[in-house]
């Protein structure tokens, strides 16, 4: 069907696009994004706490971003927990369910309020999750402060060993 014809049919409402809707099992999982979002939560908390009280728009934007980042932490962890974590992993790391639940609860706390200690706890919990995740892949991990604010210690995979 030519482009011109499809455009004409779309304009007339006769042609629609329908998704076949696939779940492509790509098998790519990584705790990096969760950690990135967790650290972002703390950074946004710091910026919020340092912002001038009268800077309403800036503060509103920081709060909105903080909530978004915390929600992304929940999403990233939920996907790994739901799609990647299987019974053999649970057998080997029996605290994985409790740890995941703690991450959900702590991320929610970070959304609800602006206590830095909640943010720090979130990063630490995600660090714990990352250590288990990389261990399941037989990959060693290191821990060092991230090279940007808030410079909190983060777990990273030591690849290529």
């Amino acid at each position, binding site marked *: *069907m030519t482009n011109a014809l*499809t455009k004409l*049919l779309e304009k*007339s*409402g*006769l*042609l*629609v*696009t*329908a*998704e*076949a*809707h*696939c*779940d*492509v*099992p790509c098998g790519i999982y990584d705790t990096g994004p969760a950690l990135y979002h967790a650290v972002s939560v703390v950074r946004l908390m710091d910026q919020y706490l340092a912002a001038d009280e009268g800077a309403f728009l800036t503060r509103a934007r920081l709060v909105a971003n903080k909530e978004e980042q915390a929600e992304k932490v929940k999403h990233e962890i939920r996907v790994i927990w739901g799609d990647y974590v299987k019974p053999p992993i649970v057998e080997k790391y029996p605290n994985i369910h409790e740890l995941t639940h703690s991450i959900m609860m702590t991320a929610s706390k970070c959304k609800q309020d602006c206590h830095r200690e909640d943010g720090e706890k979130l990063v630490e919990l995600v660090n714990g999750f990352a250590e288990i995740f990389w261990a399941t892949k037989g990959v060693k991990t290191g821990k060092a402060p991230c090279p940007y604010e808030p410079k909190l210690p983060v777990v990273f995979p030591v690849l290529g060993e």
Partner: protein
Amino acid sequence: MGLLGFVIARVRGASMEPGLPDGSFALFRRRKAVKRGDVILVDHPEFGLIVKRVHVVSRSGLFHLEGTGKLSTDRSRLGGVERDRIKGKLLFKIL
């Protein structure tokens, strides 16, 4: 959506292969009786406008969906939809 009870859908994605591969066009007709095995155009509450096959019609009148390709979202996630969400039944593939 559609004209005189007909609508053409361009299918995106591989989960209705081999009958409706990615990029194919198909003609659907509204107000047709729908039964098990029919390929339908559905306004899904979670996934939007999708093309799927009716796996089974439950006693409560819900149309449970499935894909025909290996990559399709599975039945449990697609769930069942009410009749008024069905926007057309496949008549034939155009190209």
